[in-house]
């Protein structure tokens, strides 16, 4: 039986998280359909059709789906699932996937398996619990498995080489009890935090938001994304979408540089799968050093400019 993947996009381009979800879907089912719910999604549908492993792109178009609510995405997905005989419904564990998929699972009267990091079989999955301090392997007894996957645990599917068919499907009637009335998206020229090869993150030690400029200069040299600990976000130094951790974003870059971050469990949960971790902190006893490959004890306000300069030489 095929798997259905919920695509995440902005009506213009596909979000990279979906490429990881497609890889997981290909491991679970021999055929993969991708649902694109939106408005004027020609380019998105074409991009998805080019991903190897995708059999069909199912495109539901309506003006009210330009900024769709969970209620409307779920309604259209459920209509497709009702006639599709899917074995799995899959999305990335992003803020969109987390919002929509449990709604679908509940309507199907099935469990959802959240934030899967390994597929052990078509009904058996491993997922982190307790902020990644334990891994649970669970087997689902439901007919349809509704799954969100952790993007860092699955490779991105290639973006070319495939030739899926594109089918227009009917959008479900509009659910009017919820409406998106505003968006304030953080604008950035930098790589996206969850897919960047290098991440530079700041914590409470940055002391204020202004000082994040030091990290920007370093990130420019490394073509890095900028992240933050919960403490830095709570203190208002940077916006919420910078937060790396159990309840923020999960990252696993080649290089993670933690600056002025002590290393609370909930922060480590978001970055400890990074390939190489560098910690810079004035407190030699900070827990972050226990998981860092390269720890440098000292004043970040001296070290970061020196590091930026050294990288230029």
């Amino acid at each position, binding site marked *: 039986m095929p798997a259905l993947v919920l695509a995440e996009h902005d009506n213009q381009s596909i979000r990279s998280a979906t490429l990881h979800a497609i890889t997981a879907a290909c491991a679970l089912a021999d055929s993969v359909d991708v649902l694109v719910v939106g408005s004027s999604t020609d380019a998105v549908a074409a991009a998805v059709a080019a991903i190897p492993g995708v059999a069909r792109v199912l495109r539901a178009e309506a003006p009210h789906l330009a900024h769709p609510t969970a209620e409307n995405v779920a309604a259209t997905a459920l209509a497709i699932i009702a006639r599709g005989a899917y074995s799995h419904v899959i999305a990335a564990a992003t803020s969109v996937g987390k919002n929509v998929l449990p709604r679908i699972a509940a309507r199907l009267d099935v469990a959802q398996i959240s934030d899967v990091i390994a597929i052990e079989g078509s009904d058996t999955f491993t997922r982190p619990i307790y902020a990644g301090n334990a891994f649970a392997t669970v087997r689902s007894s439901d007919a349809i498995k509704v799954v969100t996957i952790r993007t860092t645990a699955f490779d991105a599917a290639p973006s070319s080489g495939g030739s899926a068919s594109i089918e227009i499907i009917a959008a479900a009637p509009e659910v009017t009890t919820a409406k998106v009335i505003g968006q304030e*998206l953080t604008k950035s020229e930098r790589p996206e935090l969850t897919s960047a090869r290098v991440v530079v993150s700041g914590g409470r030690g940055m002391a204020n938001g202004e000082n994040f400029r030091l990290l920007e200069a370093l990130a420019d040299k490394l073509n890095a994304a900028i992240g933050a600990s919960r403490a830095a976000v709570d203190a208002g130094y940077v916006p919420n979408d910078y937060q790396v951790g159990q309840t923020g974003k999960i990252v696993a870059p080649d290089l993670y540089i933690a600056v002025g971050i002590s290393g609370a469990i909930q922060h480590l949960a978001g970055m400890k799968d990074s390939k190489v971790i560098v910690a810079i902190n004035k407190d030699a006893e900070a827990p972050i050093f226990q998981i860092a490959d390269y720890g440098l004890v000292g004043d970040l306000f001296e070290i970061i400019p020196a590091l930026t300069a*050294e990288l230029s030489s």
Partner: protein
Amino acid sequence: MVAVKRVIDFNVKVRVKSDGSGVETTNVKMSMNPFDEIAIEEAVRLKEKGLATEIVAVSCGVASSQETLRTALALGADRAILVQTDAELQPLAVAKLLAAIARNEAPRFVILGKQAIDDDANQTGQMLAALLDWPQATFASRVDIGEDKATVKREVDGGMETVEVRLPAVVTTDLRLNEPRYATLPNIMKAKKKPLETLTPEALGVDVAPRLATLKVTEPAKRKGGGRVADVKELVAKLRSEAKVLP
């Protein structure tokens, strides 16, 4: 209506049982899920502003969840309902129990944490909204309740999104919605006298049988850290030649 869950305290270092059946919970400090504390706080603030008339705290689980409900009552809930069972409860079952209670209580809205810090599932609120066919506003960082609708600012991956939902609705809390107050001693004493009703899944007509069987719980591989460098020059040299993550 506010849903609260009893979980291992966030300060406890969780240990996996040697037989791989779960994590150690005996003699471990239990507390209210921190996201649910934020939910209680928000409900109390709405009541203080005259936007809610009564706060009903609900928890599902073992008898000792009463302690969690007493905490909710001490923080400002007016009465509490415990759906008591020793059965393992998964998010879908909890959502069904909460939906059954919401149908009886007919609240204007239900508010609960976006996730519990034990199973990290992030499902119950969305499932509850789906089962009731109510709109949902998840990951809330600001809630404004109007006459027949609520405007909610949500934390999303790219920044913020604002949704307008018709009431009744389900709201799930994110970290920055508010800073919960501490329960004062007089309020803890008063909470002991507030009504706490106990129900069962059977009485609510809900089948709570788990859909997921836990085959094993393991400890993740320990990361070998603790390496130190003396200065910036050594750091950059090692990142280039040893770790090979810099050109």
